[in-house]
């Protein structure tokens, strides 16, 4: 290994009320990193930390939940403190995951480098393993950053919406212009290093009509795993939902076709649904937000996940701040979420219960219906459409290709494990 690790003086963390303590013990008040231990939660079961390394982004996606972004990066001291916090807040957990988010994380690549080296080295000495991942739009990737990611085995979650027409419409460059050329240039590089990298597409009413085309496009780019997440903060008209139904039917056929080929693909929402159907157990809310996962923003604030932006509910989902106390009562409420009781009370006799499991994303529930436990109506419609297709796909595989079904189930189980 020959990557130079620059030695940088740590900047102060401004913590309200700490000045008095510094004065009392006579320490230089430039910083007090170990105050991060004031923020350690009572229940030390955090395993994953999402870190906003920057607010800055070179794209201007129309559905972005961060409308008022600033061109600011996390400072190195806060970043390292966040890793120290995770090492302590994880208790006896030995496998830790840190995911870089943004903005576009690669705009703050220098911070990422320092965090990865520091976190890996420190965790190793403490007998823990710290893995790193990055959620990226792929447009700012360089050979240097890719080589760094390869060397430290970083995982990629690639945000991309689909064919150039959709990508450029939904995710244009910030100053205007298409983003798809950069995506097409960099995606193969990522996939050459990590063939299992996941393409994450946001499904909007605008892009619904080419859902299958998008999936085929991802396969042409080299992706073998993908997920289509509906943007529920868009207006879904009945005709849009019909388009989605038709597209999911074709998607099911495409999925089966690829499963039977020599180069099978993974469509995450199909896999999860099939797993639930096969096990005949209701899909539980698998979101770890506020439980094993915590998000830290560039200012060192803790949130249950990246979606709980400061503006949501007057910022009252703030779980704490590095150096300040942690909101254990709020965390306790997250830890004790009881999906069957809390989510499915309003599900009645909905046919999709087995594959849906109720509210999928609490943050979206809050932002759209102001009810932590109840998803917006559009979400329910989309889940029922997906359920119907998953049911059909599962039935077909079970009847005609049981071995293929078994391999799908095994893959899903591995992913869950």
């Amino acid at each position: 290994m020959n990557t130079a690790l620059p030695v940088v003086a740590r900047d102060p963390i401004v913590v309200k009320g700490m000045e008095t303590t510094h004065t009392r013990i006579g320490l230089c008040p430039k910083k007090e990193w170990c105050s991060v231990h004031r923020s350690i939660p009572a229940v030390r079961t955090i395993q994953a930390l999402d870190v906003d390394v920057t607010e800055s982004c070179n794209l201007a996606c129309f559905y972005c939940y961060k409308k008022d972004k600033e061109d600011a990066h996390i400072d190195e001291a806060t970043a390292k403190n966040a890793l120290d916090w995770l090492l302590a807040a994880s208790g006896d957990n030995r496998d830790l995951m840190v995911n870089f988010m943004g903005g576009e994380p690669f705009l703050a690549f220098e911070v990422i480098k320092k965090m990865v080296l520091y976190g890996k080295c420190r965790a190793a000495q403490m007998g823990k393993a710290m893995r790193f991942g990055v959620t990226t739009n792929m447009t700012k990737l360089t050979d240097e950053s890719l080589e760094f990611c390869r060397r430290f085995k970083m995982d990629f979650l690639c945000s991309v919406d689909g064919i150039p027409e959709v990508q450029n419409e939904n995710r244009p460059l910030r100053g205007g212009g298409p983003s798809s050329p950069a995506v097409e240039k960099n995606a193969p590089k990522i996939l050459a290093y990590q063939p299992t990298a996941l393409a994450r597409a946001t499904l909007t009413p605008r892009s619904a009509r080419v859902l299958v085309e998008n999936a085929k496009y991802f396969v042409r780019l080299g992706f073998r795993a993908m997920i289509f997440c509906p943007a529920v903060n868009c207006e879904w008209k009945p005709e849009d939902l019909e388009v989605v139904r038709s597209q999911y039917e074709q998607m099911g056929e495409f999925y089966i076709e690829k499963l039977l080929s020599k180069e099978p693909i993974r469509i995450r929402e199909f896999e999860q649904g099939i797993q639930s159907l096969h096990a005949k157990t209701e899909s539980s809310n698998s979101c770890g937000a506020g439980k094993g996962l915590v998000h830290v923003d560039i200012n060192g604030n803790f949130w249950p996940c990246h979606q709980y932006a400061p503006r949501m509910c007057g910022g009252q989902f703030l779980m704490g701040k590095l150096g300040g106390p942690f909101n254990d009562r709020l965390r306790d409420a997250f830890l004790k979420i009881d999906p069957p009781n809390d989510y499915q009370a309003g599900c009645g006799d909905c046919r999709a219960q087995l594959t849906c499991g109720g509210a999928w994303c609490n943050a979206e529930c809050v932002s759209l219906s102001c009810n932590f436990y109840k998803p917006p109506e559009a979400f329910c419609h989309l889940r029922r459409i997906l359920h119907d297709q998953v049911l059909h796909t599962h039935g077909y595989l079970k009847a005609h290709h049981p071995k293929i079904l078994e391999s799908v189930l095994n893959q899903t189980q591995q992913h869950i494990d």
Partner: protein
Amino acid sequence: MVRLRGKRCIVSTVRRPFMTGYWPDISVVFRELGLAQMSVSSLEHLDVQNQFLCALAGTASEAAVFKPAMIGFKWSAADMRSREQLRAAHTSATFLGDCSRQVITAALRALAQQVGGKNSLIDVQFKQWDLFGDWQRGKESLNDVFNSFYSTEQRLGSLMFFSSFQETPEQLWEYIYDRPQVRIGWIANDLATCSDLAQLEHYRRKNPALKNLETQANTGLWPHVILPATQTNTKILPALVAALAEITRCGTIEIIPARLMPECGAGPLFSAEEYVTALLAIYKDDRIPLRMVGPQLWVADRIDRDDSLASSLQSAGASIAVLANGDMYAGEASVGLDAWRIGNVLEESDALRWERLDAIPEAFSSSTAPSQCRSCEWRYRCGGVDCSISLLNERQSGQPADWESLFQLYCAPRKALFEEALWDSVANSVQAGNGRARELIECHETGINLRPAPLPANNQKQ
């Protein structure tokens, strides 16, 4: 016996006649007095203890939430057995001085053959030799240690060496990253004479060791610091520890009275009372992570254990010390004492007197040796006084009056910390018991509320 201290209630002994049935009103008393916390430090049987705690708290319905410390059950047979088990699972070798490759490999091979079973851990330490002084050769010695484990059934636990940190190699993080077993320590002798905060500030700005330590910690090194406590620095011990925690980005800090460290020589004795006060202040300082400071760490590791423990690897006869000339002793504290010399690994490899190592646990059986330990309610959590203290006393014979002071420096802080830790353990359990009810998140445009969740229908009667 129940003792009240502020808003806390200390129950120090509960025996059979005082089972729950005989204490019907204690929970009322507890609430009436508005007690916030309670400590139960000695109970005869676990079930009695559980029942008693439940009655006393009145707030928690499950005994399990308390996880009470179990104290005072086992006696020497089990005690000795646990030491044998410990030795079979975990041993340590300390190399003192600039040891050659032959000495290192011969000593580790001999140790692996003699003690420790399959998959047992061996911790290796280098002391009195700054590997950073000649880092190239230092790395070779570390490699010798790694290589020694390729063909054995034992595993390398940690590999620690101590440096003065006057100079540090570049790209040290790379070396550490590839070999996570390696820990690097610093003995903070410079801070032993630090008497006030101004001096501490001066050290922080001027001392090259502290600067290098900070630089390396900032690049990912997780150092271990041994801080000798002296009469001079005890007054500012909490500030020293806070400063070190910051400089090392929360490396581990082990506080040892300088008088109990053979390498520090026989410094002046100081009052155990003052030392205890300082340690308790550190324990209660929320800026200092509990599990990263010793002897707090030592106590925290033991408070919830229910097996009988030895006070250290050396007391269990599971530690050897090897000098540069190949002389091997039954632990670091016994170096120089002929009675505990096992032999020379280079010259007498076939005639090493391992029985001397075997004799350590019995000779210093903590629960039987010092009279103070026999009646101590913490004897099974503590494991008794460490044999290094007794050996130190033996080495410094001619000053018998020192024994009590040495003993107190070792014992008093542990007792005090055990009591504090138990307080916290019980208080946390009571708090957790109260917080078991669920709360639902209610969202509004302007904020959120947490409101108690209704009990599920089938639990309504509870």
